[in-house]
């Protein structure tokens, strides 16, 4: 699986790895959080900020901030829409689906035949199921005859949501 090799320029060293382990559960909620992490790692606060900035620049960190529980902020309908899209058109159409303002994640994934015929996944968060269904209809219209079938998998419970936890 070639995509799993580090992208050139994004290699992390042992200190970066310790920094990931120290921050993956969250930043300390104190006035000088980077200094607090630095003290734990035995490096300077400036170095913590410099390393975080480098990981942001190369995409190892997507962003630094709050991760809301989407149910708690009113997005109570969470539909994972899945689509069986012609392989020759899925990349072109996946980019268009991903560009829709209401799609929060959009990926191509392998089919698992015969159980699972879908190769395009697009997550839709809304305030109710009617709104999800209306948005899924928009995706269906965009895919047109390149799509052979689709489904919506609504979530009914968050069983766990801790985020990444790599071993120290």
């Amino acid at each position, binding site marked *: 699986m070639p995509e799993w*090799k580090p992208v050139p320029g994004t290699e992390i060293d042992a200190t970066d790895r310790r920094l990931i382990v120290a921050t993956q559960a969250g930043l300390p909620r104190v006035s000088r959080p980077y200094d607090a992490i630095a003290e734990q790692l035995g490096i300077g606060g400036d170095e913590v900020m410099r390393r975080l900035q480098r*990981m942001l620049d190369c995409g190892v960190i997507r962003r630094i901030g709050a991760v*809301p529980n989407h*149910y708690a902020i009113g997005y109570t309908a969470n539909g994972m829409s899945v689509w069986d899209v012609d392989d020759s058109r899925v990349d072109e159409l996946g980019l268009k689906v991903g560009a829709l303002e209401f799609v*929060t994640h959009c*990926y191509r*994934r392998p089919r*698992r035949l015969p159980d*699972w015929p879908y190769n395009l996944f697009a997550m839709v968060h809304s305030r109710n199921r009617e709104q999800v269904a209306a948005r899924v209809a928009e995706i269906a219209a965009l895919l047109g005859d390149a799509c052979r079938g689709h489904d919506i998998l609504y979530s009914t419970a968050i069983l*766990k949501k801790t985020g990444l936890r790599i071993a120290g």
Partner: protein
Amino acid sequence: MREAPASGRASVAPLDEVDKRLINALQGGFPLVAEPYRQVADAVGMSEAELLRRLDSLLERRILTRFGPMFQIERAGGAFVLAALRVPEADFERVAAQVNAFPEVAHNYRREHDLNMWFVLATATPQGIAEIIAAIEAATGLPVFAFPKEREYFVEMKLHA
């Protein structure tokens, strides 16, 4: 953490307007400066102490699930894989507990489908994924359907409160 299934309505503590403003302000671009909370507090018009108090409360009430860097670990040689199980209803709670016990399980959702449990595995190396899948299959006695991403078209994890 459970929402009511069919109606889609969760019972949640009300969020006041200040909390909403704070959540929106904290969803990206947290500053890399010595006193970042103070900088954000100034921008949203509250004291640093008030911001920290509210942030603690939002995390405590699970309105925020975390506050910190979001890692795209594949970039650094690690792996994230979406996976699913077809769990018999009678065994659902047992299997959920078994799956959630693995620290490599980052998120886990119940979904309305024949494949009714969907979770994300995160490991420091690609080899770790195969190992964790084998361990989950051994623990639960169920086959794991793995859906590694082949291509990412879009990811935006911000939601307006």
